[in-house]
């Protein structure tokens, strides 16, 4: 069975919604293999000294769920999610620290795990619930319709992006680390990236998570307006090129030459390169400006994370084809 990591990023909610979330995770009908709490508090505490948390840890131990409490680097939740994304689990179930899943959520989402599936989300219910009868889940309608996850989901449906909390295939697409600490749109960029990579995204019925949007604390607290616009610009730039295969070659001349062999096979490429005489394209600085983060295209970092043993040409194939 595929191993599932449950990741919870938390800030300022030690004694409000976080305990509810942990309790809900511990009482899932399908338990994750491991739970990691990423503590993003400015003054983190050792929760092993808190009686309430001792109960949680005890229950996890007895139920055989490994757990870890990690102190995050305070760079924003996209960095936390990328850590979870690269921890060698096949799947990650991300749960917000104020989003309380009903007991069957993970089991219902995991039913849809398949080789061609990238992510599965359920209903994310924030009262008062908004109508979603006509919502499509298509990225082109993101500004004109309520998110399909904002109400109960009656039937399984293919979508193009997901929101808030979902189960995703780990290690195949990166979170954009160029976003601000607010990381606005991070989950939309991430899930739509999985979709563009050819994986199916589903919304599934009977997987309800109550998202109370606790006004206190939260991973996105204490942020500024300009961060929103910074992230929104990256989101729009990415969306504007969503019909293209983005290629960023921020590497040596030899790498460009090897890459040029696979270029004819890439569908509708949008190229950013260092050696335009070998692979014509726009500048790397422009890629950095448009997307904020160009590390997802760093072939050496990819080969390292893939523990690569095959040829460089094959690595480019894996990244771009």
């Amino acid at each position, binding site marked *: 069975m595929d191993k599932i990591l449950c990741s919870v990023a938390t800030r300022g909610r030690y004694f409000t919604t976080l305990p509810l979330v942990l309790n809900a995770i511990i009482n899932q009908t399908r338990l994750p293999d491991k739970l990691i709490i990423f503590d993003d508090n400015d003054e983190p505490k050792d929760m092993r000294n808190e009686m309430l948390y001792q109960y949680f840890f005890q229950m996890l131990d007895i139920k055989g769920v490994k757990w870890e409490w990690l102190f995050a680097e305070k760079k924003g939740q996209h960095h936390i999610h990328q850590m979870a994304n690269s921890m060698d689990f096949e799947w990650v179930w991300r749960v917000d620290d104020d989003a309380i899943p009903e007991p069957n959520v993970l089991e219902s989402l995991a039913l849809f795990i398949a080789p061609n599936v990238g992510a599965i989300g359920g209903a994310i219910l924030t009262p008062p619930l908004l109508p979603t009868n006509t919502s499509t889940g298509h990225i082109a309608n993101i500004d004109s319709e309520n998110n399909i996850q904002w109400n109960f989901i009656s039937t399984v449906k293919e979508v193009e992006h997901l929101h808030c909390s979902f189960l995703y295939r780990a290690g195949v697409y990166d979170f954009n680390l160029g976003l601000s600490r607010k990381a606005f749109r991070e989950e939309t960029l991430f899930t739509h990236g999985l979709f563009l990579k050819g994986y199916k995204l589903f919304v599934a019925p009977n997987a309800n998570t109550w998202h109370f949007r606790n006004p206190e604390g939260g991973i996105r607290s204490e942020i500024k307006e300009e961060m929103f616009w910074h992230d929104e610009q990256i989101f729009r730039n990415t969306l504007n090129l969503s019909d293209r295969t983005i290629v960023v070659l921020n590497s040596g001349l030899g790498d460009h030459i090897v890459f040029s*062999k696979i270029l004819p096979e890439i569908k509708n490429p949008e190229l950013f390169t260092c050696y335009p005489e070998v692979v014509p394209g726009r500048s790397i600085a422009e890629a950095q400006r448009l997307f904020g983060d160009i590390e997802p295209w760093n072939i050496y970092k990819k080969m390292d994370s893939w523990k690569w043993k095959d*040829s460089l040409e094959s690595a480019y194939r894996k990244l771009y084809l």
Partner: protein
Amino acid sequence: MIIISPYSKALRNGKQNPKNYPYWRELIAQIKEPIIQIGIEGEEQLTPDFRKNLPIADLKALLRECRTWISCDSFFQHLAWSEGKPGISLWSVSDPLIFGHPQNINLLKSRKYLRENQFLWWELVEYNADAFVPPEVVLKNV
């Protein structure tokens, strides 16, 4: 005519690039045909005919003319492969199965010298002349 491409890109910390072959002078002395060295300004001249900073198109033209070539692990072995001209690549700590091309003769002394992480910055790797094959081995393949 044989092309040699002796040097890989200079490192930012000024240290010798671990990919640079240490026995070029001994090897060149034993080659009995014209040699053209290609490279960039600032690299040590090893042959009377040293052509610096050639554009890619000129390098391709030279490749068409040469009998074969000898190169360290640099862009040149990729360019020659791309042009369908087989030659000799000299390896030390980088893995020819990843960064080389089977169409070339890839001379690696031993896989025991390969660096553990193939994808780290070169600045973090110490130079080791022992990791290269001696000139006689290269000469046999020329």
